[in-house]
């Protein structure tokens, strides 16, 4: 076994690999760029080597620097993690030339699976189910119809040179195929100057299901079951789980066998993933093979109990697989959420900055529930523009899918991040979504369920009551202390009313609050004025704590608390609301206050993120139509086109090209 390995990566995956290596008694070397000097992976590793400036192309992607770092530290092997150099054929080759071991598959396997067309051919040859279709050139619409009838409807007509949906048509009968073929060909010609089109089966409501495989250098390959990754936003996986709620044992076995056959066909000798697209009818077709550790591998680890990184290290060191296919069992259910530094309320635009507060939920295992957080950041760290915005993977495991989801939901409630915007509220909202809970998934889930983007959940019903109860309990703790201030008048004890009016926004929830034993009892006042029965809230929360952890009527509950003037902003299950705990008299006065008049942001175009103005595409006095480009702002090296949300006339322009703007800085104003 190796004594020392180098991890050619950063962030959570580097940290995760270090953990396993340390458990195996292997010393670890981290590499880091200028931007990662204070990063968690550098702190965790036994040694760390500086490899260059922040852009990955000048640091993490430089093979020579990695090899130099190995030589300087005496590392014998390199784990590439995912991304960066992990699927570059040249990397294992260069390592091998330098006498170093690559903890991953052989270069030949990477090459064989690296090319989309070649990999499909290899898959077909290995007997893997591929999407039925005709890859050759189709001469005319008659031929197209014939092919479509052979494949079965619906079909997709695609431009060979296509991309971005151009030259793409879906047809569900012969007539549509004929027409679609003509249109697609014309579009393809005008868009790409190449009128070749092909036809393949169109899978309605597709799901993304993938099989984890594991091979060694002795020809053994097994599979570790599937993961479903259908919750995606613009082809970016957001939530994953294992097993898949779609599959039955027979389909699982069939998919697993095919994945193993493909892996064997390319002499696969590490951990890898065979990705399939699946129909709701459990039909499945090969998509591609990823010749590396996947981001979402922890869900497989939690249901199989197998540490994939450990297996990768062992097989790389030449060991035979210690696990046979029959030893692999799937126990319980695991769900993973990817926590991204992006603003769900602003169309998921990336968010950068300092992690002023970062308090992830506690990791650990009880008899039935496991919470694992693979994180690459820490409080006081910086989310920079240079790398992937994923900051953590929160994984929960339970005996059933429902239990894993419930645990995930609770863990997300306790995931406290300040300083940057993040997608935890969105993830929480998905966890509460009935369609997700039922497992009726497809890769279109987010687009279909959140068609107008994400807005915070409104506080209603049970959730509102729960939040109101916690608000009252928090206020009670604060109030008890206020009455212990020094310098009080003798003989005039400050009394406290039990009746409170909790405002969530402007919605009022009347209740009574009192201390009872080690808890705080909340009694809701019903519409008829009757006081309901007591709900007992028990918590060690004290002022200054970011999250209220406790139980309500014995059920665990976590609510995030951010102080605001005279109240708190509370976050729970994707709901975020300003809560005020008033006495009856205060509430009576508050009712007289005019509703907060927000500055009419609709009339202004505000900069959605900190960035550089590339261009202002309109002029003062110009009439614009909804959808028209108003300005382009570059942030995180991405050019974001800002469009008019409705028709209007530009009244004033406040920013010019080349200006650096802060978030919410006005760019222009409508009349």
């Amino acid at each position, binding site marked *: 076994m190796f004594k020392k390995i180098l991890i050619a990566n950063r962030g959570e995956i580097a940290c995760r690999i270090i953990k396993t290596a340390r458990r195996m008694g292997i010393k670890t070397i981290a590499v880091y760029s200028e931007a990662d000097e204070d990063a968690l992976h550098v702190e965790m590793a036994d040694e760390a080597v500086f490899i260059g400036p922040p852009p990955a192309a000048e640091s993490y992607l430089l093979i020579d620097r990695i090899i130099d770092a190995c030589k300087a530290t005496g590392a014998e092997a390199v784990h590439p993690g995912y991304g960066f150099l992990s699927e570059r054929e040249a990397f294992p080759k260069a390592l091998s030339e330098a006498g170093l071991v690559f903890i991953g598959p052989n270069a030949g396997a990477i090459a064989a699976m690296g090319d989309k067309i070649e990999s499909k051919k290899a898959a077909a040859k290995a007997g893997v189910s591929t999407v039925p279709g005709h890859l050759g050139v189709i001469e005319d619409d008659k031929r197209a119809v014939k092919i479509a009838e052979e494949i079965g409807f619906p079909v997709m007509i695609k431009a060979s040179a296509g991309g971005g949906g151009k030259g793409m048509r879906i047809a569900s009968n012969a007539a549509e195929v004929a027409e679609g073929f003509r249109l697609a060909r014309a579009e393809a010609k005008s868009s790409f100057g190449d009128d070749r089109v092909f036809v393949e089966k169109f899978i309605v409501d597709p799901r993304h299901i993938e099989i984890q495989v594991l091979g060694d250098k002795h020809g053994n390959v097994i599979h570790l079951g599937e993961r479903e990754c259908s919750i995606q936003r613009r082809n970016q996986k957001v939530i994953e789980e294992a097993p898949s709620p779609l599959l039955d044992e027979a389909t699982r076995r069939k998919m697993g066998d095919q994945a193993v056959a493909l892996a064997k066909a390319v002499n696969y000798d590490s951990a890898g993933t065979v990705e399939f697209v699946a129909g709701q009818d459990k039909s499945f077709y090969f998509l591609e093979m990823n010749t590396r550790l996947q981001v979402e591998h922890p869900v497989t680890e939690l249901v199989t109990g197998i540490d994939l990184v450990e297996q990768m290290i062992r097989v790389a060191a030449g060991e035979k697989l210690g696990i046979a296919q029959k030893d692999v069992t799937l126990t319980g259910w695991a769900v993973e959420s990817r926590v991204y530094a992006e603003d769900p309320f602003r169309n998921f635009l990336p968010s950068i900055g*300092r992690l002023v507060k970062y308090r992830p939920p506690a990791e650990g295992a009880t008899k039935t529930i496991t919470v694992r957080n693979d994180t690459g950041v*820490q409080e006081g760290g910086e989310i920079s523009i240079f790398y992937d915005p994923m900051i953590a993977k929160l994984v929960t495991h339970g005996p059933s899918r429902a239990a894993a989801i419930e645990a995930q939901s609770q863990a997300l409630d306790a995931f406290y991040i300040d300083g940057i915007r993040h997608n935890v509220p969105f993830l929480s909202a998905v966890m509460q979504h009935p369609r997700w809970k039922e497992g009726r998934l497809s890769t279109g889930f987010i687009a279909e369920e959140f068609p107008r983007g994400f807005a915070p959940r409104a506080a209603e019903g049970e959730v509102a009551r729960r939040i109101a109860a916690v608000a009252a309990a928090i206020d009670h703790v604060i109030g008890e202390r206020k009455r212990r*201030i020094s310098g009080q*008048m003798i003989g005039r004890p*400050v009394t406290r009313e039990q009746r409170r009016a909790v405002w969530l926004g402007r919605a009022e929830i009347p209740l009574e609050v009192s201390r009872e034993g080690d808890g705080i009892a909340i009694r809701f006042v019903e519409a008829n004025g009757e006081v309901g029965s007591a709900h007992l809230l028990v918590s060690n929360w004290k002022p200054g704590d970011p999250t209220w952890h406790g139980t309500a009527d014995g059920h665990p509950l976590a609510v995030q608390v951010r102080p605001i003037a*005279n109240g708190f902003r509370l976050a729970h299950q994707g709901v975020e609301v300003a809560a005020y705990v008033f006495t009856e008299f205060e509430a009576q*006065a508050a009712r*007289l206050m005019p509703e907060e*008049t927000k500055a009419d942001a609709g009339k202004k175009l505000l900069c959605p993120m900190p960035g550089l103005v590339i261009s202002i595409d309109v002029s003062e006095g110009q009439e614009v139509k909804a959808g028209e480009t108003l300005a382009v702002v570059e942030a995180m090296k991405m050019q974001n086109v800002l469009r008019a949300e409705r028709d209007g006339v530009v009244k004033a322009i406040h920013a010019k090209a080349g200006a650096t703007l802060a978030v919410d800085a006005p760019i222009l104003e409508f009349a």
Partner: protein
Amino acid sequence: MKNILEALDERRANAKLGGGKKRIASQHERGKLTARERIELLLDKGSFEEFDMFVEHRSTEFGMEKSKVPGDGVVTGWGTVNGRKIFVFAKDFTVFGGSLSETHAQKITKLQDMAMKARAPIIGLYDAGGARIQEGVAALAGYSYVFRRNVIASGVIPQISVIMGPCAGGDVYSPAMTDFIFMVKNTSYMFVTGPDVVKTVTNEVVTAEELGGASVHATKSSIADGAYDNDVETLLQMRRLIDYLPSNNTDGVPEWPSFDDIERVEMSLDTLIPENPNKPYDIKELILKVVDEGDFFEIAETFAKNIVTGFGRIAGRTVGFVANQPMVLAGVLDSDASRKAARFVRFCDAFNIPIVTFVDVPGFLPGTAQEYGGLIKHGAKLLFAYSQCTVPLVTIITRKAYGGAFDVMAAKEIGADINYAWPTAQIAVMGAKGAVEIIFRQDMKDAEKIAARTKEYEDRFLSPFIAAERGYIDDVIMPHSTRKRIARALAMLRDKKVEMPAKKHDNLPL
């Protein structure tokens, strides 16, 4: 007998109605509460005791003898906030528009005298139209009595003014002489002369809001120390502020049991200072991570944002914080920032509130605008304020402490008790570039030499260690231990005693 008691009840009920139900409704329609509602919100439930409820004016001019309302446009009395006694008067806009008459003024001065005798804070809630014109010089003289008492009480008991409606003419000067002014957004304004007079005299057309609204006074003029959304928010925030303030200049700061550990370390502070010395960071993160429970009451938040002032607690006891804000103008000291901090420091010193100063200051702001505006004297105010302090002063240099600004920001040599520096501190006359250009002027053309000299200067001077070697700072501390070290320093200094020579009063550079 029963009838007499009932008559009292009746008179009380009548007095409490002020200007009547119609005027109360119109007050509510404007999004404003009545004087008595405001007092009730401000004080603990049932604690208010009213004085002079039956006072009426004595004017007979212009038929005034026919219109009398008990209370005469101001409600006065006392009560408690979390059990601590507070004196309060509230102008009643429903009665003669809250205008000030001779008797109205007498109600206020009576309360001021009472507050001084009882040595407890006094709070004025303003919503009034100025002097009652029908009373002439009697009203003007009334103001003067109030003004003089404001001045005598200054530095003895905290005085707070809350502007919750119009406040114009003579009415503005009493608030102006109190310790703090807070305003309600959209419903309050404050000016010496109103838009009509402005138009007549200068032809300037301006609205009341533009001339003296909360947004103007809290950001531009510095008249207001804060602005809130509405009456309820404002009054509840005043309760919060009172919890921080001593009752008078001898009682010391209030104390309550803290839920926060004074030994708490904050590892994330070790990365607060960016690698790049020209990159800003938010000093409020440091303040929020140092104070008990992250609770900080900021004073003048929206004015001269390059310096942060406000109250927090350490170990349950009030502490004043002054901090340069690198996020705004690199934390430079200019006239506005100097005035803002100086006033805050003097308040703290007057009422025995210890001061913690966080320093990251590149110097004073250069330029004609500043020099013409009297930067020298404004800067001197802050220097003067710190130098005359007798309260415990703890200073922490986080990054830059350049030039004269180093001295001004509570240096040990002007009277600070404990001065710490973070390892990232740079205590020098100026930054490297400027310094090298002066010291090595002859090498200016040789880029290589200049680079070497710059490096030399940075290594030698841009560190806390020269200052530490000479005892100008007491220790170099780890950023993560800042709260712990401040708490220890304040505990050690709790009984600090410094005698200043007796004098009539000082002569602050105004």
